[in-house]
């Protein structure tokens, strides 16, 4: 039995050893060189910041740390180019969803975990700015960004991308057989009996698209009437779930989960993504957007340099890079949101099926900041209790 214990310890040591020398073991069998390239970066954590290795396997003297929410993504080549050009190794820290990532940044103010933060959206903008956790910096190329996306006059947080939250519908549902223009369906109509139990939304208290859609309804119906609509929706059996994943895959009938509800709160890019992520099986989206004027909410995502960074010069370089053509071209294919740079390239499928909604709701971050918690509380009272 002693042999068994020793065997166990040995096995664990070997496993632990694998951790140090990633890229030589299991994934040696992986096809393609990108996988290995990604792995090489993993090795660097052990070798420390002094001689950090990068995507291309070269060693660079400095490390720049970027903190973000989970959905941050870019191409391997785009990251490698920056590392090479600036003689720096990039390290990424992902810290949960938008809310928890930002709160982590705010809690570590003064002694930050990273140099740059990506992923504050306009619903959280005021919290981030009033906590005084970001340093002002106007990156190169900022003047090309449309003025209505730049919400911080002091340039502590810079817009990088944006997306729209609105209703998606299942084209195959009988509900839309006789609809002339489902794309223009007014939200008022959803309180009609034929839509009873047919709409699923996310809880604004726990979900970022849920909050965004709630904010759209505030603008759509006005601050006096929006709750009335939600009360009627409650009467009409609106289904509320905790987060987007459940709403889309478990409840929505248009997705691969094939749930019971043909209308869901999702993104304007979702129908196009259904085609893009169908492995060539689809040429047309099985779902569509419902986009009456003011029926969608624009979520803008910002990045900024964290106060207390020890790499200010490099952090500025990264901020410049985030607004460069190179990164902006990469945003739609990797993150499925619209780049802020007007000249950025959009893949064909998104051009075709995810045009930018023309008349989104407009609520400024100040109004959102002042009313956010109250609105969520009122919504909860009206819809859930």
């Amino acid at each position, binding site marked *: *039995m002693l042999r*068994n*214990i020793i065997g166990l310890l040995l096995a*664990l040591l070997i*496993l*632990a050893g694998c*951790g140090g020398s990633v890229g030589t073991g299991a*994934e040696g*069998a*992986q*096809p*393609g060189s*990108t*996988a290995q390239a*990604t*792995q090489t970066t*993993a090795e660097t*954590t052990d070798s420390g910041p002094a001689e950090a290795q990068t995507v291309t396997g070269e060693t660079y003297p400095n490390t720049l*740390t970027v903190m973000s929410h*989970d959905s*941050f*993504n870019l*191409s*391997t080549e785009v990251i490698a180019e920056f590392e090479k050009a600036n003689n720096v190794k990039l390290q990424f*820290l*992902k810290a*949960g*969803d938008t*809310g*928890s990532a930002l*709160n*982590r940044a705010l*809690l570590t103010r003064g*002694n930050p*975990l990273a140099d740059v933060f990506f992923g504050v959206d306009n619903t959280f903008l005021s919290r981030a700015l009033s906590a005084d956790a970001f340093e002002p910096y106007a990156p190169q190329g900022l003047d090309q960004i449309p003025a209505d996306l730049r919400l911080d006059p002091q340039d502590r947080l810079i817009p990088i991308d944006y997306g729209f939250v609105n209703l998606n519908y299942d084209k195959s549902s009988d509900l839309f057989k006789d609809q002339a223009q489902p794309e223009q369906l007014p939200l008022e109509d959803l309180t009609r009996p034929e839509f009873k139990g047919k709409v699923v939304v996310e809880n604004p*208290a*726990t979900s970022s698209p849920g909050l965004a859609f709630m904010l759209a309804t505030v603008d759509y119906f006005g601050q006096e009437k929006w709750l009335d609509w939600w009360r009627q929706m409650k009467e009409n059996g609106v*289904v*509320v*779930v*905790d*987060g987007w*994943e*459940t709403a*889309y*895959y*478990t409840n929505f009938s248009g*997705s*691969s*989960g094939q749930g*019971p509800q043909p209308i869901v709160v*999702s993104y304007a890019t979702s129908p196009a*993504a*259904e085609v893009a*992520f*169908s492995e060539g099986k689809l040429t047309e989206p099985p779902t569509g957007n419902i986009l009456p004027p003011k029926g969608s909410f624009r979520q803008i995502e910002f990045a900024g340099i964290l106060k207390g960074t020890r790499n200010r010069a490099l952090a500025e370089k990264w901020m410049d890079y985030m607004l460069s053509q190179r990164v902006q071209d990469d945003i739609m*294919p*990797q993150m*499925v949101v619209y780049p802020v740079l007007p000249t950025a390239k959009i893949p064909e499928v998104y051009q075709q099926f995810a045009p930018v909604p023309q008349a989104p709701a407009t609520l400024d971050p100040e109004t959102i900041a002042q009313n956010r918690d109250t609105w969520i509380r009122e919504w909860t009272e009206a819809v*859930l209790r």
Partner: protein
Amino acid sequence: MKLETRNGDHRWRLAVRGSLALLRVALSGLPLIFFALFYFYPLAAILRLSFTSAEQSVAGMAALWRDSYYLRVLWFSVWQATLSTALTLAFGLPAAYVFARYQFRGKTLLRALATVPFVLPTVVVAAAFAALLGQNGLVNTALGGLLGRDAPLRLDNTLTLILIAHVFYNFTVVLRIVGGFWANLDPRIADAARVLGANRRRVWFEVTLPLLMPALGAAALLIFLFTFTAFGTILILGGPRFATVEVEIYRQAVDFFNLPIAGALSVLQIVATLALTIVYTRLQERASLPLDLRPQATLQRPVIGWRRRLLVGVVLGVMLVLLLAPLLALAYRSIALGGEWSLRFYRLLQQNQRSSYFFVPPLTAMRNSLMFASATTLLALLLGVPAAYLLTLRQRLLRAILDPLFILPLGTSAVTLGFGYIIALDEPPLNLRTSPLLVPLAHTLIALPFVVRAVLPVLRGIDPRLREAAAVQGAGPLRVLWEVDVPIVARAIVVGAVFAFTVSMGEFGATLLLYLPEYPTMPLVIYRFIGQPGLANYGQALAMSTLLMLVTALGFIAIERLRIGDIGEF
């Protein structure tokens, strides 16, 4: 000459005893140091930050009392946890009995399968349940056809669904902790009672049940705490109308960044846990008796005769339906999604089609998960077994303090502790905020109560006369430990190891908060895929979930095969 040898022998023994005492002190110190550094210190730091002023803390607490909403949340947490615990025990006990007392084929496999639910992310379980019990699910389609009605079962967002999920998740706690203890329990005590004229009922209530109490209590406590602080199952399966204290802490901390209220709720939850544990430990000490625990191979009977066949058949049948159906539904969908049978989603997992920087090959995710789980298992055993030994010491006061202490992490909110880690462990030598070590450390904290609770009832059940007899016959303390304690506790240690491994394989919340993209685990990869629209993403999430089930099941079998000690059933 002769005298000198004896003298030397004696001196050697003294030295051994001395170093053993030192070793014991060092070993018992380890769990305490670990707790001080990785539990109390971060917790204190975040609470201090939440209550920056005395007024604020008073205001936070007062708000809890003023608003009856929070009391209702607390009440709901207690209520659903009580129901969940009772139901899980009701379903789990017959299975624990059958596994403890009968020999049948496929036992190891079945036991491994019963543990698999523990590691599955709630989002995935929700999808499996929807496929099975949802409005358009299999059961509803079948029932609807029979009854001629549309969707006769309406379980979405009901307490029933939460309870089913909790039984699904925690079944294995009863099966392993109670079953493991039961398997070594000498049936001759019950036989003796029967010979003396007691009927089955009386034997069960007056002999077997009291003897099982320590293990039963441990399992009940763990299930209660696990469901009392439930997060994902409540949010995702119960829908937004239900909230436990844990859910409310997350909302307050993350969505509103209202740290005073979140802090006050955390304190409330910890106090409730503490109170429960104190009551429990009091009862438990009275319940545990020295027992003649025996190797189980001698105690198990073959399944012969129609009565036994029927019993074993029914129990295993219920278990299969309850546990296996959702797992199979998942695995089936991962190969049948999109209309045709194929392994394409598994193949897709290996292709970095968009040449994304954050692409993770499946083998890498498996390796990371296994690495963290192995480290967690090792750490949890290294700390948990001495901790359990500490709790068998004679000093009552020490016991009374330590016993609830080792349970507390289960009653502590993951967000609170996660935030505590990043503000407390931010300076050298403990600047661990971006260290991959944080993941196994956090996992160990959650796994520790399971190890302690699995080992403790068995440890307390060891008849001290066994040790005395061994000592009288000349065995040194080390030998007594090795020949008496280890063989008897071995099975419980395996149970603890399985739980530590499982907790780590499936843990998601803490990993997400403390996460470095260099070391993505399998649950993180699942979440990444399920966070985007499109058939390929959903299919890959299902494929990765199926792989997670497989890897975990193989992991258990491996752990159980590494029989530590002579008692094993293989």
